């Protein structure tokens, strides 16, 4: 399967919608589920760092696409790697 999480940092506003919408992140951190960036050490699939989205534990990703749907600027997507960028 070659469909993977792909980010476009040049488009990202750092709003954090994806981080908070991600059901895997939400299950791991009630704080994130509630809409706040984690204060404790916790494994998230992606986090906002220095105002832009960074992919972290992508192997946890179940490819549901919730993050992509929540992003207002399509800065995070599920795409076949050959088609990306």
């Amino acid at each position, binding site marked *: *399967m070659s469909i993977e999480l792909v980010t476009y940092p040049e488009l990202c506003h750092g709003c954090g919608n994806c981080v908070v919408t991600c*059901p895997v992140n*939400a299950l791991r951190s009630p704080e994130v589920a509630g809409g706040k960036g984690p204060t404790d050490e916790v494994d998230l699939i992606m986090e906002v760092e220095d105002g832009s989205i960074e992919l972290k534990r992508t192997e946890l990703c*179940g490819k549901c696409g919730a993050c992509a749907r929540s992003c207002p600027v399509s800065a995070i997507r599920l*795409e076949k790697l050959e*088609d990306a960028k």
Partner: protein
Amino acid sequence: MMETTETIDQDKNISVQRTGEETRKLAFKNVLCTSCGLCEKICPVTAIEVEPAGATLEEQEASKIDIKEDKCVLCGMCACICPYNALEMEIDGKSVKDIEEYPKLLKSAEISEDVCVYCKACETACPRDAIVIARDLPERSKLVTGEIEIDKETCIDCGICEELCPADAITMEHKEPTADSPTVSSDIEVDKDKCVYCLICKKACPVDAITAACRQCSYGEYDLKAEDSEITGSTFIDEDLCVDCGWCEEICPVDAAKVEKAFEGTITVDQEKCQGCETCVMICPCNALSFPKSEESGGKPEKLHAEEKYCIFCGACEKACPNEAITVERTGIKSTPIKSKSWKTAFESVKGTSK
């Protein structure tokens, strides 16, 4: 000797073919696929990979499944298990659904025209838009009986009856008064095909210019024929689109629709694991999943409601859930008899759960 070839068209449909002693052709129709993963599960040579359902909710460049040309042997198992008719196999031009040796899933959806009242609830409810109900309504004028007459001498052209008429049956010819014709209307007519003899115009007329009576109210239905109020129509279920989910059977108010499902099973939701991403709800081809709203303010309903009545236990939701919050277990598969031991084993392997 023989070679397997694969082609993919612009609609992301896949065709795999091998010509030897026979010509075998496997056709995949992308639009019917729900990424449930049953084909991937049953394939004896692991030739099929199903793309994540959540990704295919968005338009993708690639097909929803990937069939490896160098692995596929065109055995036909995927075509026989697919509950969505997305995979079809032909041998020398004949569909395996018409070849006795190949197990055919026993599933059906039928509407009895003797019982159906053409209410169209099934058409509205069908999650695949597979049902078309056509109905001929009776003529309104044959369902009512009465008399009405406007005395044009007495009528003062006030237009109150025209405005009030709930059936839009009264029409006035409004006009500008002129010196030679100083009236505001040149004619008033009641369309007897539209009039329902409600008598509102008669009651409202300020000069009692209207005489009217409803015969039904006064004397009963003696001059109405029962057959004139019959509603006739026809029903059509598109077998290619129908997934035998059971919505039509459940929603039909007169039990005219009967559905037989191929898979028996259960679906359970771990409400704690579910984080409400909605992927499963969007993916479910049977509208069997929903996020219920709270009955009262401050109430806490279940996060995800899974209704077995509409579920065909395909497992698409289970596959799509990134938190493994859904468990689909198939306990039975109804099909025509399977003689081949390896095929029996393959069908058995699709039962149980993925966990």
